[in-house]
């Protein structure tokens, strides 16, 4: 069974801090994704990655960056956290074909 693990379920940070959200998958999937989930807006794609060291902007990349140094790990970075980045963040992974994505449990991030 595919396992996508996000390092924290809940996180509280302050405005201006640099925040790292970590995601690890154990199925050797090529593709990995970061979303944020907000009520009434569904899931919006922040960044995704096809392979190691490769990344592409999603629909709302502003204020975020990502890192993929190893195939199994995809990190989301908030360079200088702001209150409008308070949200639920979901990581997902999948094989390179058009197969379903597998999601982690999510990190509920609050920026004070």
């Amino acid at each position, binding site marked *: 069974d595919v396992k996508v693990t996000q390092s924290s379920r809940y996180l509280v940070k302050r405005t201006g801090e640099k925040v790292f959200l970590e995601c690890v998958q154990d199925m050797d999937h090529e593709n990995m994704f970061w979303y944020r989930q907000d009520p009434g807006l*569904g899931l919006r794609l922040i960044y995704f990655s096809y392979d190691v060291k490769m990344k592409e902007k999603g629909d709302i990349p502003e204020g975020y960056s990502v890192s993929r140094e190893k195939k199994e790990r995809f990190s989301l970075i908030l360079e200088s956290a702001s209150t409008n980045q308070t949200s639920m963040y979901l990581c997902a992974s999948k094989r390179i074909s*058009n197969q379903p994505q597998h999601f982690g449990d999510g990190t509920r991030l609050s920026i004070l």
Partner: protein
Amino acid sequence: AQSVSQHNHHVILSEAASLELGCNYSYGGTVNLFWYVQYPGQHLQLLLKYFSGDPLVKGIKGFEAEFIKSKFSFNLRKPSVQWSDTAEYFCAVIVSGNTGKLIFGQGTTLQVKP
């Protein structure tokens, strides 16, 4: 730009009632379609998917969905809901030639009263 629209944002039903959640997408080419469910406090799980073939697809827990290409729709149905179906439901689309990115609808919160 491609988009996915879920018409119902919040649905309240009694147990044993029938369910239909609407989903429409805007893209004229080949699509792969998905319904995901998120139970309270849990991660998103795949309910069912459509890639090709029979447009009526059956998923887990008695759910089914019908792909109607002429209507750009992929509505989710269940003949008789249970209290345990209380969850948020997301329709999603992968567009052909896309990089495998999922485009999600806004989500529908289903509340089933016992």
